């Protein structure tokens, strides 16, 4: 399994697939988008921060563990940090595998594990002056 894990302060740019294989039969993509309403309150966006060295370590471990249950060829995880406006992606996850069942299962379980154990936080902060 090839895994790409990246954090960026810039808008998420979807990278090309790393592995070229005629055995890839399923590609599952997840885009996590910042919504306008958070617990009923309108927002202009959210601020994200992470403990990056630990987040990378935890994600590598999660992906390796999930790979034993749902073998996939490639996983690409991109998370935006800093200010993310409403309507923009904070998270991009792409899983490429031979079959759809593994790709869907891996993608879903990876997001659940991230939300449980990976040190990334969304924060409601005032709109930064340079965000307009």
């Amino acid at each position: 399994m090839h895994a790409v894990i990246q954090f960026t302060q810039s808008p998420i740019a979807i990278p090309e697939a790393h592995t070229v294989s005629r055995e890839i039969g399923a590609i599952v993509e997840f885009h996590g988008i910042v919504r306008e309403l958070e617990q009923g309150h309108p927002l202009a966006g959210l601020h994200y921060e992470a403990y990056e060295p630990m987040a990378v370590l935890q994600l590598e471990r999660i992906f390796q563990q999930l790979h034993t249950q749902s073998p996939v060829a490639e996983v690409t995880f991109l998370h935006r940090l800093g200010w993310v406006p409403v309507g923009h992606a904070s998270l991009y996850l792409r899983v490429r595998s031979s079959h759809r069942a593994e790709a869907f299962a891996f993608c879903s379980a990876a997001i659940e594990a991230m939300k449980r154990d990976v040190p990334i936080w969304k924060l409601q902060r005032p709109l930064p002056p340079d965000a307009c």
Partner: protein
Amino acid sequence: MPLRILAFAIASEQLGFRERSVECIQGETPRALLARLHPSFDPSVARVAFNCEYLGWDDPLEDSGELAILPPVSGG
């Protein structure tokens, strides 16, 4: 022994710092260390990690390194 403490998200606001260096007694637990430095901080609202690995609040700190205070995560 020297210890670098990192605080993230709401924990940095509660503790009043994002990073600071402290002297830790060998064998001291994260719970005892935080009680000594910030008695008003409630450890039950956060997890703790040492050198990027989750640690229990009552596990002893035996080496110098990086202690991180991690409030509930919310990525995605």
